[in-house]
């Protein structure tokens, strides 16, 4: 069942590619603006701006994802079908996780190019990126579900997503800076712990709460 729902989400997206493309375009424009407005860039700034841009464009992607469900009224049909709502939640989280990862794959070289710095991706950075993407995806789908019955979801998603993401933004910036500067793991293990713990807690909360959030 999970694979069917996941396939449906991904097919819906990659038939038109509108969400991924618009996220990528907005990310490119934002990184262009950030890079021309600041001189004397350091390597840390790439990390900071990269994650700020990712949080901004993910609110756009979530809005598109739930707007599609609302426009076609398909969500009511899906929750009236005999499927466990937590499976719907997991499929949406995995789908958005894949989308945002694809966007990052294309956006990262653009940012490195614009900011004119040398940046090598290690396994640590890769793993931290995946964990943070999982957090954004789980949190964003909880918040997106909340806005499903609202007419103002374009406002509510960023207003709720950014404050909840603030601690994770701090943690990922510190942890990534620690990895690329070759600090010992002990120096930034707290931040890695915060990211992983938040991702797990929010994901479990979403599985538990998703039916209450989306039901009519």
């Amino acid at each position, binding site marked *: 069942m999970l694979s069917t729902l996941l396939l449906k989400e991904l097919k819906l997206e990659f038939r038109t590619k509108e969400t991924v493309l618009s996220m990528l375009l907005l990310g490119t424009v934002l990184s262009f603006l950030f890079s021309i407005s600041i001189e004397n860039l350091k390597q840390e700034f790439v990390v900071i701006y990269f994650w700020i841009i990712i949080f901004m464009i993910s609110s756009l992607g979530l809005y598109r994802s739930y707007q599609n469900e609302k426009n076609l009224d398909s969500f009511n049909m899906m929750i009236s079908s005999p499927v466990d709502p937590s499976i719907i939640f997991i499929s949406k989280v995995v789908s958005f996780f894949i989308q945002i990862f694809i966007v990052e794959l294309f956006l990262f070289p653009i940012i490195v190019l614009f900011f004119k710095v040398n940046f090598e991706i290690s396994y640590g950075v890769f793993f931290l990126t995946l964990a943070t993407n999982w957090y954004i995806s789980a949190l964003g789908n909880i918040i997106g579900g909340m806005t499903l019955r609202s007419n103002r979801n374009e406002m509510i998603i960023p*207003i709720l997503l950014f404050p909840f993401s603030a601690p*994770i933004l701090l*943690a990922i910036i510190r942890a990534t800076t620690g990895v690329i500067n070759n600090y010992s793991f002990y120096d930034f293990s707290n931040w890695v712990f915060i990211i992983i713990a938040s991702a797990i807690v929010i994901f479990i909360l979403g599985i538990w709460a998703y039916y209450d959030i989306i039901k009519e």
Partner: protein
Amino acid sequence: MTSLKNRETFLDNRFNNLIFWLAISFSFINILLIVTSSSSLIDLYGKENYARWIFYYHVPIAWNAGLCFILAGINSFLYIKTNKIKYDFKALSFAELGTLFGILILITGSLWAKSEWGVYWSWEARLTTTLILVLIYFGYFMIQKYGGAYEKTSINRAYISLMSTIMIPIIYYSVQFFKDEFQSHPSNGSYFVYGGLQIFFFSLLSFSLLLIFLHKYRIFYLNKKKEFLK
């Protein structure tokens, strides 16, 4: 039409009346005590400093705001579990008061920071945590206002409140260690001179009474609204 017959005001209840007058009089005495007492003027370095007065407002407000946020989270959890509307009203009232007191923390904290450190905002950990919580609760009120029908928004609000309560330790932990080269919060306890401690606890008591009064008042009018909706 039943609601129109019910002309009972908040102060008709004897307990509410008592709480109202106690809160008013204690707050008034509190101001007089703080302003007239000379021991409340001594700052952390043993000098006289008028900005020290803000301490006797800032810390009691902060303790009450923390209590409000925790109680909002607990009542939201109970609402999710039992689906009884009284818990939702309590959670909503505590969330509103927590946000109000949170904004007051930010204002009084900035004023105190200006006198102690020379800047209004220095990314101190507890103020930053409060700021993030207040921003989350602004989203909470956005959901309440624009989230759709009442039955939907109430459950969504409850989950946001629960999530913010879960995130409080994580937010505090992360902001405390993020800006470690910046300002640290002055520790409390060891800086009281004679008389200051009593004034502080009186202030705490008066703000707690104010909190109880405001909470009772809000619950009373939410219940009235519920009767009217029937």
